[in-house]
């Protein structure tokens, strides 16, 4: 049996290109502007490590950013007493991101379609739609303060 490094508490951190191991990370973010980078930097790195294409990485980054900003700003309303919980899983075939806030939630179906003619120039209301478009699946819990997003990797063309 080949010699292996002893296991650590974060074995997924040792993933290398081509390694099929999943990377998992859960953490709590403070409800302050800019806090998303505490997770997105590692997430982007791990998507690259697991072989995701630049355009998929862009899509997942955008969805994660929108979900976390929504949770911090609209969910927790920047309340320093509340946190946003983020859980990520990245494998070569699936990227899954769950974002939960401590706010009262919202009804995602109540967000007007920003593509309607009379809404085209409204400055807000595009985040959820971009999340839906760029991810394979997105689901909110019943109260609307937790969202689970998943992207499945498309097989390479050709």
């Amino acid at each position, binding site marked *: 049996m080949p010699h292996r490094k002893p296991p650590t508490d974060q074995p997924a951190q040792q993933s290398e290109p081509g390694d099929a191991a999943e990377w998992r990370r859960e953490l709590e973010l403070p409800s302050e502007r*800019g806090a998303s980078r505490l997770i997105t930097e590692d997430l982007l790195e791990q998507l690259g490590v697991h072989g995701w294409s630049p355009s998929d990485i862009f899509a997942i980054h*955008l969805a994660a*950013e929108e979900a976390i900003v929504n949770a911090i700003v609209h969910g927790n309303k920047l309340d320093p007493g509340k946190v946003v919980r983020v859980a990520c899983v990245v494998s070569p075939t699936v990227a899954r991101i769950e974002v939960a806030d401590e706010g009262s939630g919202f009804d995602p179906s109540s967000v007007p379609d920003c*593509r309607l003619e009379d809404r085209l*120039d409204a400055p807000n209301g*595009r*985040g959820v*739609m*971009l999340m839906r478009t760029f991810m394979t699946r997105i689901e909110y819990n019943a109260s609307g303060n937790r969202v689970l997003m998943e992207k499945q990797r498309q097989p390479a063309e050709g």
Partner: protein
Amino acid sequence: MATHRRIDVSKLGDVTIVRFLDKKILDEAGILELGAELFGLVELENRKSLLLNFAGVEFLSSAALGKLITLDRKVKSNKGRMKMSNIRPEILEVFQITKLNKIFDIRKDEAEAISAFA
């Protein structure tokens, strides 16, 4: 002329060319500052022909889209014109998904955008 931290502003003839200094436009504080600098070009300096050159911009969030939409409104209500150029494919896709390509005048590169002002 105002000092800018988020944009680089130059002029070619009557056209004001704006380039973005951040590769990723996502930090909320940065977006607020970016908005204020862009709006100042219209509201304080009364610039009528604006070209936003997105060369080097790799990422922008929906909050940044909001600022671009508000800027577009301000330019139009000031009887000015705004065009965009050098948008990378992923960001162009964001504009297409949100149908913002219907309200923004998007050109391939700076030369094409400049000639479209004529």
